[in-house]
């Protein structure tokens, strides 16, 4: 099953970090002109493999072969010069520089005296970007573009370089469907030109749409490599998880149990929330033990609704009532005192404090409660941390490990622990499973389910319709900052949610 003449290859790759074997003699071969899916749970070794291929890390043992020869890139630039381009999940360009400069960074067209020929650069840049459907003034700073457009610039940049190999790490996580189509067309073109693509993604549909072959990593080891079309979706998932096929089939793809019937009075009632241009009279209610889904497109006001309820977005009008008591608006501290806790959408920017340990991150919000006269009680902190690390099965070397060293799924669990330590009444979860691997996703979903079972009121925001349908008891659909519909019980289906989002539910 091996590729006849691989362009890029890792043989017996071993990479050890203090306490973890990130790559355990894994092998990987990328054929010419193929789109190769690289999959695995977080912590399976995907990112490490990419980093050793592109010269970010050096192998402890084993070797990298590029076009048949053994290579040792000492930094990413060397790999790039050799023809291996990488597009990371987070755009890694210079936001303050112009779009054109970013596109040509490091290989600007030169005029006389070796000075940059700006006119030519701008002209070429607009031309290239038009091909990607980005119509923007290339003199504007990159940061002024939307995240999707930035991602397209990064793609254009990677492809423009004479890359034989383009590595894409979750390239679609910030793209709109229209942009995803463009991305896929570009990938097809690359393939037609005989260039190769390594494609890392958690989204199954995408993999099956564009990838030829697949390599599955688990715990740093190679568990499967071969043509993707021959591999059933369930089989692929079971390979990634290392779980039995029948088990996966029986349990479904998400970990939600379904319904929690609750007839109690709503514990959270938000009425008439308004914020200029963003929210227009949004009302919703959640009962204890109930999971209410919040659906809608990007920009429909989902995150803003959650932030408004949590006091992080000031309101022009409207009120939030928890357990019969009005929560003063515009104050996160007041909302937290009332028992409302928000798990923010952007885990890195708004969630974890990367310089601190798992322990400090867990107790961040609860500190005042674990202190007497302003002095922290270390014993109480240890107890809380231990309890939640065990309960949420947080995988870390210990409570003292830096949170930035954990996988995305475990970071998310740390954030959940931060809120559970506050004994919340209402949990607002904004995309709790985005960007975390299949296994951790299932665990987080099971956890949300369990929390609702314990009587918590949960507002679940997700772009994953499957997750919303299986997880929610009710779904509120937002469109342009207003409630466009509400679905209940058997009425919660993907079709109906999409119809409500599209706005053709005639009632």
């Amino acid at each position, binding site marked *: 099953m091996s590729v006849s003449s691989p362009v890029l290859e890792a043989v017996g790759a*071993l990479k*050890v*970090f*203090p306490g973890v074997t990130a790559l355990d003699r894994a092998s990987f071969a990328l054929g010419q002109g193929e789109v190769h899916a690289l999959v695995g749970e977080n912590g399976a070794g995907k990112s490490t493999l990419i980093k050793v291929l592109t010269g970010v*890390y*050096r192998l*402890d*043992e084993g070797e990298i072969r590029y076009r048949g020869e053994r290579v040792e890139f000492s930094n990413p630039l060397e790999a790039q010069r050799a023809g291996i381009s990488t597009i990371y999940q987070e755009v890694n360009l210079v936001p303050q520089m112009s779009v054109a400069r970013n596109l040509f960074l490091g290989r600007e067209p030169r005029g006389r005296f070796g000075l940059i020929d700006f006119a030519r650069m701008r002209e070429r840049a607009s031309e290239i970007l038009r091909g990607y459907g980005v119509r923007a003034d290339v003199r504007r700073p990159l940061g002024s573009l939307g995240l999707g457009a930035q991602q397209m610039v990064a793609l254009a940049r990677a492809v423009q370089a004479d890359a034989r190999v383009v590595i894409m790490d979750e390239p679609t996580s910030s793209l709109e469907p229209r942009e995803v189509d463009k991305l896929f067309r570009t990938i097809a073109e690359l393939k037609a030109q005989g260039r190769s693509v390594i494609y890392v993604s958690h989204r199954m549909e995408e993999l099956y749409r564009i990838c030829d072959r697949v390599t599955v990593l688990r715990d740093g080891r190679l568990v499967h490599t071969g043509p993707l079309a021959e591999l059933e979706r369930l089989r692929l998932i079971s390979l990634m998880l290392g779980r039995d096929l029948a088990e996966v089939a029986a349990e479904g793809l998400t970990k939600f149990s379904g319904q929690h019937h609750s007839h109690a009075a709503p514990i959270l009632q938000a009425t008439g929330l308004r914020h200029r241009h963003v929210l227009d009279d949004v009302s919703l209610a959640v009962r204890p033990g109930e999971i209410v889904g919040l659906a809608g497109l990007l920009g429909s006001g989902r995150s803003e609704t959650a932030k408004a309820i*949590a006091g*992080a977005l000031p309101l022009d009008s409207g009120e939030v009532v928890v357990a019969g008591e009005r929560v003063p608006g515009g104050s*996160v*501290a007041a*909302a*937290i005192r009332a028992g409302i806790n*928000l798990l*923010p959408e952007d885990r890195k*920017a*708004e*969630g*974890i*404090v*990367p*310089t*601190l340990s798992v322990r*400090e991150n867990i107790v*961040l*919000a609860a*500190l*005042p409660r674990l*202190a007497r006269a*302003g*002095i*922290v009680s270390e014993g109480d902190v240890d107890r809380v941390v231990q309890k939640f690390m065990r309960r949420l099965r947080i995988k870390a070397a210990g409570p003292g490990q830096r949170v930035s060293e954990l996988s995305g799924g475990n970071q998310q669990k740390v954030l959940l622990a*931060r809120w559970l330590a506050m004994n919340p009444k209402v949990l607002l979860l904004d995309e709790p499973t985005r960007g975390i691997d299949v296994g951790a996703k299932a665990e987080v979903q099971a956890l949300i389910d369990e929390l609702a079972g314990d009587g918590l009121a949960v507002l679940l925001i997700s772009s994953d319709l499957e997750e919303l349908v299986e997880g929610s008891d009710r779904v509120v659909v937002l469109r342009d900052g207003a409630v466009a519909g509400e679905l209940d019980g058997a009425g919660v289906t993907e079709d109906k949610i999409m119809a409500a989002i599209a706005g053709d539910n005639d009632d």
Partner: protein
Amino acid sequence: MTDTALRQGAPDRTRVITWLQDYGVYAAVAALLLFNAAFTPHFLAVDNFRTQLVQVTPIVIVALGMALVIGTEGIDLSVGSVMALAASVVALYLGYGALPAIAMAVLAGALVGAAGGTLVAVVGVQPIVATLALLVGVRGLANVFLPQLKEFTNPTLVALGSDSVAGVPIVVIVAVVLTAAVAFLVKRTTFGRQLVAVGGNRAASRLSGLPVRRVLMTVYILSGMLAAVAGVLATSRLQASDPTSLGLFMELSAITAVVVGGTPLTGGRIRVLGTVMGALLMQLLQATLIKHNLPQSWTQMAQAVIILAAVYAARERR
């Protein structure tokens, strides 16, 4: 054997760098002490140690406040001017006695800190700009209060600067007590934990309900108060208030001590003892070169090398 050696090659280097980040400044201080013990005559004399410690005291105290501010991803350039302000305020109120005068000086420092804190936390001005304005303005204010150098003979204030308890100068005791207090604040109190969280990720801290504004405000006030204390001690040692030149370039020495001590300028982490060691290292280096009759220019270049080494070690952490 080569097998394992190969495997450990990279982690070994990481381990060395990590060790240097954590203990490098202590090792450097120890190395300098050993060198001096061996090669510098009369270095181990008690008098010499006392002089060195007394000289470094103001820098240590100012650097403690600076470390707190830097921990929040900020910077406080106003500290040197606050020292000058403290000197002039002491001179103004010395008629009421030494203690009221000192209290007024510390209050003045707190007020300058509150002004900086307000600009940073409420108005949203960048710390470097806000405190740069204060650096210029407060020095001017100090000169308005007291246009030129003024000597004094108040016995309490003179004693503060020159007396010792059990052989240890009072100013050094003050510095030790303040170091312990700041270390306790950072390590054991809610405020200290919240401070580093605010520096590590301000958005996350806000969404976790931390009192971000209050934390920032308090940090700048503390820095102002500590700078004022340093100003009072320096003044008491000089036995004269000198608002024109006291504390000049002190902000740079303090930042150097903090950085050399291993606290990253990007916030989210504070090393209190490291900061003290950073100040000691710079002081010892200067003393060593002077005692070996090398010119001041050598000291400056040697200090530059140490700063670069500290920044290089910090860079490797990511």
